[in-house]
């Protein structure tokens, strides 16, 4: 009887030790997983900073096409490079149109009811599309040379299959893409851009499921209550997400295009009257301006 009791105690003790170690291990693994989730959110939010800065640069020039006109409207910068006025304005000098089709801002004050007016916000929830517009296929297209000497050279070295190839067969599909989100990528990250001044912006980057709404009042103004299942659920999502705030300034100046005006192929001094067109052309690297400076905001700004 006493022997059986001893064995029971030993077995129970060993089991307790193993159980304690297991619980400790699980607790640590859980802690690691939570910390990793926080780290992942930070990385995700920083990826959104890149997206936000690109958005600032690109919307200085493009993305303002007015579907009511046959032209593909382009703009000339947040500070218009033609006269220093408030942009973005189209070739005819008028403000670009906001998403609702109205003129986006007043030419003198820059104020208006919607982005890109000064003081207004562009909210950009992000997702990975199944196939973005104009998607090209991965992989190289082989154009094997024909081994038939009777053919003319134009046939032997012809490349009948262009490389790269579009991802889809028809032009309509190619242009439209497939905007459906890849599973698991919707409601994960967002950024929003507040135009604080003519060329100064607050870019807020988020990793979470609020889709970039700053508060419930914005959700209501957008009639998007159903997306969150109520205010409490939205507030919980807000508490759980990571947000980073940056201020940045845009400039129309672009580097990398000018030096070659001074040089010829031998790198001797060259008169600007005979610029090295070949090199200069090849160095026209981008046309959407430059982010002049970036400032991480130490605290949440009053408006973002």
């Amino acid at each position, binding site marked *: 009887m006493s022997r059986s009791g001893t064995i029971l105690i030993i077995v129970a003790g*060993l089991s307790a*030790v*193993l159980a304690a*170690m*297991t619980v*400790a*291990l699980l607790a*640590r*693994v859980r802690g*690691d997983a939570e*910390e*990793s989730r926080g*780290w992942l959110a*930070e990385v995700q939010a*920083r990826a959104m*900073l*890149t997206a936000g*800065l690109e958005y600032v640069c690109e919307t200085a020039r493009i993305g303002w096409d007015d579907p009511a006109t046959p032209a593909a409207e382009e703009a000339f*910068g947040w*500070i*218009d*490079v*033609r*006269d*220093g006025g408030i942009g973005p304005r189209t070739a005819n000098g008028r403000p670009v149109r906001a998403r609702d089709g109205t003129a986006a801002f007043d030419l003198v004050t820059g104020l208006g009811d919607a982005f890109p007016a000064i003081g207004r916000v562009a909210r950009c929830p992000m997702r990975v599309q199944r196939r973005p517009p104009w998607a090209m296929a991965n992989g190289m297209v082989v154009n094997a040379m024909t081994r038939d000497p009777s053919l003319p050279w134009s046939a032997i070295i012809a490349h009948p299959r262009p490389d790269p190839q579009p991802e889809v067969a028809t032009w309509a599909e190619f242009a439209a893409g497939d905007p459906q989100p890849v599973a698991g990528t919707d409601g994960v990250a967002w950024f929003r851009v507040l135009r604080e001044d003519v*060329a100064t912006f607050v870019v807020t980057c988020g990793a979470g499921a609020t889709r970039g709404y700053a508060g419930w009042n914005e959700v209501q103004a957008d009639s998007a209550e159903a997306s969150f299942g109520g205010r409490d659920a939205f507030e919980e999502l807000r508490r759980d997400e990571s947000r980073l705030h*940056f*201020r*940045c*300034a845009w*400039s*129309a*100046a*672009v*580097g*990398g*295009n*000018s*030096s070659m005006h*001074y*040089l010829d192929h031998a*790198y*001797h*001094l060259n*008169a*600007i*009257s005979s610029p090295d067109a070949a090199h200069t052309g090849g*160095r026209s690297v981008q046309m959407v301006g*430059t982010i*002049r*400076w*970036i*400032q*991480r905001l*130490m*605290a949440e*700004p*009053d408006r973002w």
Partner: protein
Amino acid sequence: MRRAHTLIELLIALALGTLLAAAAWSAVRAASQAITVVTRLSIQNRLLRAGAHAALDDLDTWSSYDDPTDAARQPLRAPGEPFQPMALPDGDPRRWDDLDLALDADQSDARCWYRGAGVISNGWSAGSGREYGDYALHGRIDHPDAARRWSARMQRDIVDRLGFYALFELMPANTVFSWFDADGFVPAQFHATDGYTERDRLYQPFVWSEARDEPRELALLSCLSAASVTTAATFRQPGDDPSHRWFSNWATDKWRLDGVRGCVSVITPMPLRPATWPALAIDLNRWAGCGRFWAIANVTVVDPTTAERISLHLRTHTTTLLGARRQRHRDAGWARAGQPTLDDGT
């Protein structure tokens, strides 16, 4: 009364009991070792995450270069260094109050127009005259038209006050780095020299010859060369003046281009950790070179018991030098919204 065990029974029982005890001990020991390994890996991972957070925080704030809360850790606020305050009182010789020197010139502004800066050099082709005309008439450092002297004065004064790295960041991205001095010639710092990394030589020879002194944008001016922001003691020896010096692919001493990797700002977390714990090291590196700006952080965890080394290399969009200057209060500490910063007064 129960029958006593025979000797054989006892031996078998002892053997089986020993086996069972050994098996149980092995199981506990294996579990314990597994947990030890997992715990150690977990510590490594936590250190790596903590290090990455600290590195990103420092990239965002430049605190290891200039700690606004500790005047003893502000080595880059001296004259000629990138954190020199510009908001200085009247009468201070470092005060930058020339009305021509506003930083934010838009590209339609005449100050930003092309002026043929340095188009005829008097360096390599010294004395060869002005066969393409006198471009100094178009713009020079003392030109009576403010728009025609702006770029020259900005370049000269930013280099003088804040150094090379600041020059490349603060000037418009399309700036051609050169100017005409009051005598109508390109100043000496753009001339070809024998020393690739001479102090105050903004000019960097290009690959094929040091006898090339064409004016250039950052992309070509920094070809295989770099200008850094650094607090590293190696590059702060007497006479070094690293804020006014290039690292160059053609130098043979510590100013060789790969030396820029040593221009790190080091964070040493957990200085009191036990010697057996994994060690965490963070270094940050900022430089303008090879045609672009670099903000790099390396986070390394080394296990002293196994010598295992895990490194995380981070590059990200983050606070620029001008942004960092705007984060700092003119007098001390961090600037809140609306408070004066290091740049107010320019």
